[in-house]
């Protein structure tokens, strides 16, 4: 019983305070790997001691004390004398500085260090997931479709770079803030998008990643409540996550937004998203994530209320396309304009986009093209476009969905 309670307390502290403890322990020395090792030992000690001695009143402070002692010991053992002396001095300073009260939250500084321009962009999201949330390399690797060994190696290298190069644990100054914040938000969004490549949540090791990324987005919104893009990203991810239960039928079939049952959406998440979006909009500094969140909001609103939001949607895609110039956004904009001005207008825009070769192997481009051609009664061309889309689809549920659409246009000949 006591063992069970100790384990549950340790798990709860890990979930809540892991990133805070790592950030605090590593802030002075910039030694993330050392902080993580010390904390892992502290958790192991807790699981051994707490069932006998009872859970401490302040488990967070208990873990911090034990982890710090481990770091000091490790510093003494370290072969480079100067580095050890420096670590000890800094840890002593830290000790003098902190009081018995609340542990200072340095997670924002940690997130900025993880997404520093000197860190390779591809490893920033994994680094955040590991240092702030304590995910192990194997779980992160499977979400990012790499081998655990390769992911572990890249994580070790990135942490070593932070320490050796002296990347500061501090939010950047005003003139640097905008690009540095964008890097943090982009990494969080990348973690979220990776999780989406398994939207059915069939692979248990990948299922939690959108949730973990959402934790990071909410954390950024909480830590930087005056940054509209931080609020916008949290709103965008909440909207997407709220609709997840409605995106697949009981049989695992893909259900597009127009056919989803809004009763299956998570109302609390949508309300939270709308609150964040309103607060962001009041700052009057539009940006990519705010516009994308506003689009999600408009889609959800149309589906729930039946209101025609197509003009608002087209205008938002217009703004987003002007901001990003991304061909994928251009594709969505073409579909939105087709909704207000007819399929021919959308197809004309798609022809313009096709010049960008990147869309030639992009399944949603062919699916959108097929749907617009079908709406324009160009049946043969529509069937052809559906065939290409089916050939490019990686998700079996999406493939089945596209096949159904194609067969509706051109039923297969009856067997003799």
């Amino acid at each position, binding site marked *: 019983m006591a063992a069970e309670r100790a384990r549950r307390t340790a798990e709860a502290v890990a979930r809540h305070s892991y990133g805070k403890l790592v950030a605090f322990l590593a802030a002075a020395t910039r030694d993330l790997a050392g902080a993580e090792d010390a904390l892992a030992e502290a958790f192991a000690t807790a699981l051994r001691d707490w069932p006998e001695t009872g859970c401490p009143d302040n488990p967070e402070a208990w873990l911090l004390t034990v982890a710090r002692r481990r770091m000091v010991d490790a510093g003494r053992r370290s072969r480079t004398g*100067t580095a050890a002396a420096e670590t000890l001095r800094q840890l002593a300073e830290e000790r003098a500085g902190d009081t018995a009260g609340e542990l200072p939250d340095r997670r924002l500084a940690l997130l900025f260090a993880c997404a520093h321009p*000197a860190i390779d962009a591809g490893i920033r999201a994994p680094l955040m997931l590991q240092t702030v949330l304590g995910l192990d390399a194997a779980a992160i690797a499977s979400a990012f479709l790499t081998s655990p060994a390769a992911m572990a190696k890249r994580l070790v290298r990135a942490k070593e770079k932070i320490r*050796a*190069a*002296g*990347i*500061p644990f501090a939010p950047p100054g005003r003139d*640097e803030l905008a690009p540095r914040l964008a890097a943090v938000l982009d990494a969080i969004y990348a973690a979220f998008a990776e999780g989406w490549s398994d939207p059915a949540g069939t692979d248990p090791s990948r299922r939690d990643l959108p949730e973990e990324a959402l934790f990071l987005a909410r954390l950024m919104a909480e830590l930087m409540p005056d940054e509209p893009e931080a609020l916008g990203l949290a709103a965008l991810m909440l909207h997407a996550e709220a609709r997840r239960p409605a995106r697949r039928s009981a049989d695992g079939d893909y259900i597009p937004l127009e056919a989803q049952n809004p009763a299956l959406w998570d109302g609390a998440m949508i309300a939270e998203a709308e609150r964040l979006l309103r607060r962001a909009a009041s700052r009057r500094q539009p940006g990519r994530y705010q516009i994308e969140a506003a689009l999600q909001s408009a889609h959800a609103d149309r589906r729930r209320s039946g209101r025609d939001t197509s003009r608002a949607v087209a205008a938002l895609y217009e703004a987003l396309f002007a901001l990003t110039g991304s061909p994928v956004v251009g594709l969505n904009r073409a579909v939105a304009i087709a909704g207000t001005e007819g399929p021919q207008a959308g197809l004309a825009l798609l022809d313009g986009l096709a010049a960008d070769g990147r869309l030639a192997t992009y399944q949603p481009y062919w699916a959108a093209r097929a749907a617009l051609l079908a709406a324009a009664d160009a049946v043969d061309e529509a069937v052809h476009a559906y065939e290409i889309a089916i050939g490019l689809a990686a998700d079996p549920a999406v493939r089945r969905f596209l096949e159904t659409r194609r067969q509706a246009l051109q039923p297969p000949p009856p067997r003799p």
Partner: protein
Amino acid sequence: MRYLYLLYLEEGGWDAMTPEQQAEGEGAYMAYTEALQTAGILIGANRLQPSPSATTVRLTGGKSQVLDGPYADTKEQLGGYYLVELPDLDQALAWAARCPTVGHGVVEVRPVWPPRTG
């Protein structure tokens, strides 16, 4: 922390410049060195002679082998360095961005191992 700024440049560039441009370039580097000095962060700096003056030495099969020319035969060559003392990478990058080299070459910022004591 100590950081070494390695200045990589296209060597032909200097000779192709007019005397006025060369004087201007020298002035820019002198001003930058002066700024580092005034800020109290400069530890050392040197300008290197062109890479054809370089000679490489290595040990092959137990015998030292001496070769004419620089180690890497690249378009941009190491042309000089600054050694500075700054608290963190952000400040090292901010100072590196002011170096005249970034206008016509590349500055590599490398942390230096702290000296070993005891």
